[in-house]
């Protein structure tokens, strides 16, 4: 490929002198920059990551407000943040959304991402009281599986558990009681839990979890012989949860009824109670409301030179995600164009083969443009999750200020 670009390869022996001369030429060509404006190459370093074949350069952000003071440029984004910041929603579905966040520093964008993953609270099963488990799956493995089931209950309506007291404001109780009959009725109509008629094994699904709005039904052993009218259970609910207006119309349950919990063979059974409490993903990933949340910087693909005919076709064929297209420019000539830069994954396949390609193509990332994707587990809609995350960052600031006073 290097033959494409003779003047850089033929006249120099070492990389060093080559790049040295390039730089000098580059500086000589620069036009005068008026005070109060950044020269284009400095501005480029500030706003773009340049992805070269070997490694990306200018990857850091320039946060210091006085970074360009000598050029009369104020680098504090804060003042014009409110004018420049934009959000554009690309996709919004029940459990997933994609949006562009433009004009924000990675430090802040990353804070939102980290909070979404680790600090937005949800409800998840934390305690499992097993009365009977004769299935092949061990108690602890079963409990772990139960913990990972997302629970559709608005965590904002619940409180964190304090000193281990379970009541209607901080605990959701589910009961699970399934058993697989002995082979007596191998034939006959399809039974609950069977995938096919006449099957002897059954699959326990998350829909078998029954919400117990009155709390635990298991009585505490020590109180068993007590003559009090109502024996104590593992929870102390003062009222039934389904009498509360928030839940009466919107019963609590797993987000998806089709999650396999266990398989039961003939004669096996599971009887247990699962207590879900409020928690955050930092403690355990089961409380994470997203699966997951991530962002990437907007890719920018620029053709520095015209790429024509055979080379154009080669380029189009190289890119695995079809970033490039070919356009006709008359006289039977073809030219490559960048049709879908957003799709670029920056795999750098297109500039891998020699310096010629690297000189005619420039792959960049825009440093302050984030393509943010939130995939919710179904606990809350993704847009609500993001607002919650922002609120949590606000709370953190509030706490820090109050701590100092």
């Amino acid at each position: 490929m290097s033959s494409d670009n003779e003047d850089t390869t033929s006249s120099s022996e070492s990389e060093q002198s080559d790049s040295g001369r390039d730089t000098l030429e580059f500086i000589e060509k620069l036009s005068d920059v008026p005070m109060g404006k950044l020269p284009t190459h400095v501005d480029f370093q500030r706003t773009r990551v340049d992805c070269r074949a070997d490694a990306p350069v200018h990857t850091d952000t320039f946060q210091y407000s006085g970074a360009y003071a000598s050029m009369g440029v104020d680098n504090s984004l804060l003042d014009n943040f409110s004018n420049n910041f934009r959000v554009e929603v690309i996709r919004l579905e029940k459990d997933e959304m994609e949006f562009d966040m433009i004009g924000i520093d990675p430090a802040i964008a990353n804070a939102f991402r980290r909070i979404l993953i680790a600090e937005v609270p949800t409800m998840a099963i934390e305690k499992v009281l097993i009365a009977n488990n004769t299935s092949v799956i061990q108690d602890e493995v079963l409990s772990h599986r139960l913990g990972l089931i997302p629970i559709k209950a608005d965590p904002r309506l619940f409180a964190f558990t304090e000193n281990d007291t379970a009541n209607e404001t901080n605990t959701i109780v589910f009961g699970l009681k399934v058993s697989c009959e002995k082979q007596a009725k191998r034939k006959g109509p399809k039974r609950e839990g069977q995938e096919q008629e006449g099957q002897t094994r059954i699959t326990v699904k998350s829909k078998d979890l029954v919400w117990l709005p009155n709390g635990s039904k298991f009585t505490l052993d020590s109180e068993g012989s007590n003559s009090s009218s109502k024996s104590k259970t593992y929870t102390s609910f003062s009222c039934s949860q389904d009498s509360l207006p928030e839940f009466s119309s919107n019963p609590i349950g797993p987000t998806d009824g089709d999650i396999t919990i266990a398989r039961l063979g003939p004669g096996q059974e599971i009887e247990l109670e699962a207590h879900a409490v409020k928690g955050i993903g930092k403690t355990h990933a089961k409380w994470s409301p997203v699966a997951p949340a991530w962002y990437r910087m907007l890719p920018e693909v620029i053709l520095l030179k015209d790429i024509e005919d055979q080379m154009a076709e080669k380029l189009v064929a190289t890119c695995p995600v079809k970033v490039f297209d070919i356009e006709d420019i008359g006289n039977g000539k073809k030219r490559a164009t960048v049709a879908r830069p957003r799709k670029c994954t920056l795999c750098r396949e297109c500039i891998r083969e020699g310096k010629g390609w690297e000189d005619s193509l420039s792959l960049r990332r825009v440093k302050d443009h984030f393509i943010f994707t939130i995939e919710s587990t179904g606990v809350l809609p993704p847009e609500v999750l993001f607002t919650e995350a922002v609120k949590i960052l606000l709370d953190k600031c509030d706490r820090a200020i109050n701590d100092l006073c």
Partner: protein
Amino acid sequence: MELGSFSDPSQSTFSLIDEDHTFANAIRFTLNQDPRTKFCGYSIPHPSDNRVNIRIQTTGDPAKDVFKDACQNLMVMCQHVNRTFDKAVVDFKMSKSVDGMDIESNS
């Protein structure tokens, strides 16, 4: 908790419990954006400690005030993000429902 000297309030270290990179990195950004900051940085002394130390040296103002202002600035930014985001979501839903109506009326 603030750790500094009485004689020179313009430089101190703030030790925050129960915080991590999430908050420290964000606040370092807003601190850096404040022209009164001469130096700022943070460190997490030990990964099993849930504590982060934020060091601030200013050009003269008390570090505490600059830190508080940085928190305030971050809050202003968050509020703005929230407002912009909510508006974008509402706009998107509106445009979607308009599109949906178009499809229905066409069919």
